[in-house]
């Protein structure tokens, strides 16, 4: 478990499904059934066409690194400088996150590098979606790290 000093999200009725999803280690997105727009963060209507007819689905968990900063100032929940990152999900939406299983340096953090989701338990009720560099696929296993 992470140190208890992260500021924790407080789910609302409109976002509860997302946080229930991360607890079950699924990254849930929403998609409009009228115009097919996929969006994030959650809300019970489509921000593109205003339809209330939307559905929840599980994202692939694959993303690329869109941008980041490496914060040098001490934060109680992090050891040393840490990256605050923006990742572009394969399904389209962008989200803020942290990059794990990776040195927090400009050399290690290359824009557009492929990433995959991890879930980190930060409190009894909350797992945060974090991202790690995609593992190199072992020989014969095409399902890991595959790209379209």
């Amino acid at each position, binding site marked *: 478990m992470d140190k208890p000093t*992260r*500021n*924790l*999200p*407080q*789910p*609302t009725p409109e*976002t509860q499904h997302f*946080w229930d999803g991360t607890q079950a280690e699924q990254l849930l997105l929403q998609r409009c059934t009228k115009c097919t727009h996929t969006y*994030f*963060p959650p809300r019970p209507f489509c921000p593109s066409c205003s339809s209330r007819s939307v559905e929840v689905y599980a994202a692939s968990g694959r993303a690329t690194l*869109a*941008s*980041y*900063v*490496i*914060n*040098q*100032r001490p*934060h109680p*929940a*992090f050891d040393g*400088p*840490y990256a*605050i*990152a*923006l990742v572009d999900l394969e399904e389209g939406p*962008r*989200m*803020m*996150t*942290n990059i794990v299983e990776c040195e927090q340096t*400009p050399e290690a953090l290359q*824009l*557009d590098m492929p990433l995959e989701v991890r879930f980190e338990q*930060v409190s009894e009720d*909350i797992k*945060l979606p974090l991202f790690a560099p995609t593992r190199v696929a072992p020989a014969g296993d095409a399902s890991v790290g595959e790209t379209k």
Partner: protein
Amino acid sequence: MTGVVVVGAAETTELGKIPHLSQQQLHADAALNAMADAGLTAKDIDGIATAGERPTDLAYYLGITPTWVDGTSVGGCSFMLHVRHAVAAIASGQCTTVLITHGESGRSGVGRSGYPRAPASLAGQFEVPFGPMGPPTMFTLPVLRYMKDYGMTHEQLAMVAVVQREWASMNPRASFQDEISVADVLNSKMIAYPFHLLECCLVTDGGGALILTKADRAADFPQPPVHILGTGESVETPMISQMDDLTSSRAFKVAGSFAMHDAGITHADVDHLMVYDAFAHLPIYGLEDLGFCKKGEAADFIWEQNTAPGGSLPMNTNGGGLSYMHSGMYGMYALQESVRQIRGNAPAQVKDANVSLCLGVGGMFGASGCIVFGKESK
């Protein structure tokens, strides 16, 4: 042209470190200075707008009985929006004389309210848990994307701060006046890679106020009128992670193009430019989103000294948020510098400044307001 003019403009008597005044008194100090500048008292004011403090508090504190009130609060460009709303209110007869105030105890924190991001807000749920620590770690987030997509170098980003310090060296009220080099910027403390200390704004105390009225009353006031030629405003998102495009501000584009169209001007008409610079990349985004530079060319434009003293497009001539002052909601100081340049009494006065465009940002690319000022009514 809007038919509305600025007849009073002033900053707080002191700028920088003012621990002996509360935030509310910073508003009042600026307001009293602006009233003196216009030869008015509170009894002559019938409209009030402010952000950071409630307009009710300020109207009561100053002794104003308004027929028009605006508490629009969208961050540091709120005052641009107040100017825009005041123009409409004066033009429609809801009031005649509007006071817009700003005061912020950004450094000393005397009587200052914070900017909490509630844990149930979207930002509280989907940004705060990942460890951002205020603007230096959020406003800066899109820049590596811009650098990769358009080939901007660390040196070019640093040059923004160098040029603005050049302007600040001519301004006795600027917080930092000693000229700096690109190497100085790149050798300053790393705050949040790729941003060094000298690429981040100051944190200071201060305030400013404007008084607006109808252009046909301009002759009744001691100062030469500064005409408001056009205005624009927009908002985009409360979350930096959700910008449409990490290399461009939608709110800049909407507010800027509306204001220029409203004023009936082209880029060639603009003699003087203010682009709110909380961090070094903002002038680059601003120059491109306003259309002064093509996409990806603003860093070269600044590198080639076009916005520096003697350049073709003088920008941020007070030294900007990077060197002049930055209390937190800097927009008021950008407006003040535009007014000084049009009046012709700026410390680093631009020759023949007839049209000044002033672009503000609110939140972190969350909002924008744009005002075009002119010496003539056009």
